[in-house]
């Protein structure tokens, strides 16, 4: 099946996620789609698989123009997508999930579904127990289930969105074998990834996206340097770093392992000293978020020790972390950071360690005004925080932080902010360093990481690189590490 996308444009509000992307995939090939977070990969693939319509542009399948209003229509036309988070029904059995959408008659024929499932599993060497609950499967097994389900629906083009994230090494070998086999049978496969190794091993051709446009198209054998520079662009020159000498260790992470349902990080060692800024690089969901939540007491490490200012916190609760002087500023401001329906004044009242039974509203009002002034929030004390702009929400989050902190953890502190706000936020953060606060933060902006960190560590698929002094690292080296290359075995 030949797929041809021409001039696809898709905007979300002000953001042009896809800005005139063209791409063609030949039958019987595995086509890589590379790019950073936010480059437009997933948006493009959702357009192709019928999950969302594009604003303009055309899709041609075997030289026939098509348009899909739903995933069902795309599947009927032979295009199926394997999502990063499997879209199955965890409470149902493997067999029931397989039969979903597959058996279109009124009465399900379990017997026929069962033999279909067994046949497909045999063919690809998958070992799926039809009666197991999907919720109990590993990510890799759920992926296998989703793949045989799509194939049973007669799909001839499969889009795989970051399929190697969260699956085991043997599962990955099996997956690649399967994909090569399918390509040999004439199926078209689109392999969306940020992992350079995977793309180099598997794909015959790769398209690199950056900022919603095609940055380039490359044929195998690939030149890694070329891929990296296409993905990340050229780095700006370095910015003068501050001259604050780091002090005592504020955070010590020793041999920490944390398991979540998606990803596991193992044997992490890291220290953040007073006044030091440590930047965490890596594509989203590579493990840096897990480490930060663990350091804030929001996740519990099942192995290893965490010390704050010399005090062992390995078994402490989130509240104890708060009391010990740690703050975590989440990227999802209204989902996790603030309560959208409450006003600025109410947030200020809550942030002041409440004493006594009744709120002293006049005091809270004064405090709110003071913080609004100092942090230049565009809003009034009675403004609900949900109606503030993103930049003002970020300013308010910083305004609500306690004055003295040992460790300040920030997820994407300047995401979505304009240049002026970004500079302002960093001024504030550097001011806190001078008071001895250690900073740990993530960013997807390599320039920002290099400019503001003392040291940088990179995450890829749950692995952490050794910390590198920011002044010694180049964006290119960062790009390699983010793409999963250059780690110790």
């Amino acid at each position, binding site marked *: 099946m030949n797929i041809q996308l021409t001039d696809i444009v898709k905007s979300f509000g002000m953001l042009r996620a896809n800005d005139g992307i063209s791409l063609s995939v030949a039958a019987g090939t595995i086509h890589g789609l590379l790019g950073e977070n936010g480059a437009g990969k997933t948006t493009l693939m959702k357009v192709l698989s019928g999950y969302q319509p594009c604003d303009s542009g055309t899709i041609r399948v075997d030289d026939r123009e098509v348009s899909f209003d739903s995933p069902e229509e795309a599947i009927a036309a032979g295009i199926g997508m394997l999502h990063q988070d499997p879209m199955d029904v965890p409470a149902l059995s493997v067999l029931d999930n397989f039969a979903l959408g597959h058996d279109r008659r009124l009465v399900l024929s379990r017997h026929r579904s069962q033999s279909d499932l067994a046949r497909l599993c045999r063919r690809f060497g998958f070992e799926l127990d039809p009666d197991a609950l999907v919720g109990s499967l590993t990510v890799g097994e759920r992926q296998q289930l989703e793949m045989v389900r799509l194939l049973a629906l007669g799909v001839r083009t499969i889009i795989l969105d970051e399929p190697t994230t969260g699956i085991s090494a043997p599962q990955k070998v099996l997956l690649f074998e399967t994909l090569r086999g399918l390509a040999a049978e004439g199926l078209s496969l689109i392999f969306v990834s940020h992992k350079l190794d995977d793309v180099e091993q598997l794909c015959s051709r790769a398209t690199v996206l950056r900022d919603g446009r095609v940055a380039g198209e490359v044929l195998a054998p690939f030149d890694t340097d070329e891929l990296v520079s296409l993905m990340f662009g050229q780095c700006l020159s370095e910015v003068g770093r501050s001259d604050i000498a780091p002090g005592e260790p504020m955070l010590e992470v020793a041999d920490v392992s944390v398991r979540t349902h998606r990803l596991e990080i193992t044997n992490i060692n890291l220290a953040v000293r007073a006044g030091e800024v440590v930047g965490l690089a890596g594509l989203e969901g590579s493990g840096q978020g897990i480490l930060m939540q663990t350091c804030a007491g929001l996740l519990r490490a099942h192995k290893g020790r965490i010390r704050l200012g010399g005090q062992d916190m390995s078994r402490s609760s989130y509240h104890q972390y708060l009391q010990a002087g740690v703050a*975590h500023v989440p990227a999802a401001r209204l*989902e*996790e*950071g603030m*309560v959208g*329906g*409450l006003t600025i004044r109410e947030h200020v009242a*809550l942030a002041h360690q409440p004493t006594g039974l009744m709120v002293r509203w006049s005091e809270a009002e004064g405090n709110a005004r003071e913080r609004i002034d100092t942090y230049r929030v565009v809003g009034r004390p009675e403004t609900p925080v949900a109606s503030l702009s993103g930049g003002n929400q970020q300013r308010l989050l910083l305004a609500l932080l306690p004055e003295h902190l040992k460790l300040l953890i920030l997820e994407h502190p300047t995401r979505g902010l304009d240049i002026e706000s970004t500079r302002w936020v960093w001024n504030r953060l550097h001011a806190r360093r001078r008071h001895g606060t250690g900073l740990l933060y993530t960013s997807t902006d390599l320039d920002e990481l290099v400019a503001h960190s003392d040291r940088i560590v990179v995450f890829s698929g749950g692995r952490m690189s050794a910390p590198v002094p920011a002044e010694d690292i180049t964006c290119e080296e960062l790009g390699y590490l983010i793409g999963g290359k250059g780690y110790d075995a």
Partner: protein
Amino acid sequence: MTRERLTRLGYALAPVLLTLVLACAILLLAGANPLQALGALFLGAFESGRKVADIAAAMVPLLLCAAGMLITFAAGLWNIGVEGQMIAGALMTTWVVRSIDVPAALLLPLTILAGMLGGALWGLLIGALRTYGRVNEIFAGLGLNYLGAALTNYLIFGPWKPPDGATMSGTEPFPKAAWMPTIGSTRASWLGILLAIVGIVVVYFLLRDSYWGLKLKAIGLNDRSAHRLGIDTRGNMLLAFAACGLLAGLAGSLRATAVYHRLIPSISGGIGYLSQLVVLLSGLRAQIVPLVVFFFSAVQVASPRLELRMSLDSSIGGVLQSAMVLFFLLVRGFRGRMQTAQEVVE
């Protein structure tokens, strides 16, 4: 009047008008004169001092339960278990009256405390099922309502049955020392009225001005953020259930000591469910609750009269109450949709 205010007034009156239209339609279908019937329904409750006292008596438990429900609603919890909490309060009260030997002057205060304690414990049980057992509070509350009703029947027909045999009319009457003093020979008890007023006023200020109220509001709006902000979400939810139970338990206790002077099988009388409608109709605002409670109670007192005078079934009052809540929610939903549509256009 500006256009905006007119619109707001329109939205406020629409549910009332829609309810009246529906009521007229039902009354016409039943072959009654709608004007006469509605007149009897709304004015009938005020024809004598005794009737007014009846309204006051009916308001007491409803106001207490609604006050409690305001607390759990603030924390974003659907506390369906108010009925059970009332029952628990009545059971504890009855137990105290039957089993504890105290001077007559201390008996009534003790029944009140027992009722509050019973309701609070029952509420805590629902809260614990929700926070530790991960049982949705709706199911926990509903399940425990049935358990409470069954427990009442067991006690009335078992250990607490009167010497001359168990009947649906309940236990033996309480001794006079356990009767709430009433105003004259009416059914209204001044102590009950006072407690209900204190209850709603305290809840109003608690939710408006206390740190606890602010925390509950944060939890109700977004419990994840609330947790991140350092609020103990579990503990405060438990406390909200307990506080609601305390007020509902008091209501149940007063039903036993002020109205029936005994424990009867359906001691909660559906008031717990009714209070939910009250709170929804008041838009979760404590200052509106007394008005709604007053209206509901007046309709309730007048309904039986309809049956006597116009041979209409007295359930028409309940139909009106429920219809008004539905229309209120419907109009509010419609208004929300119109506003979003407007924002999108802008």
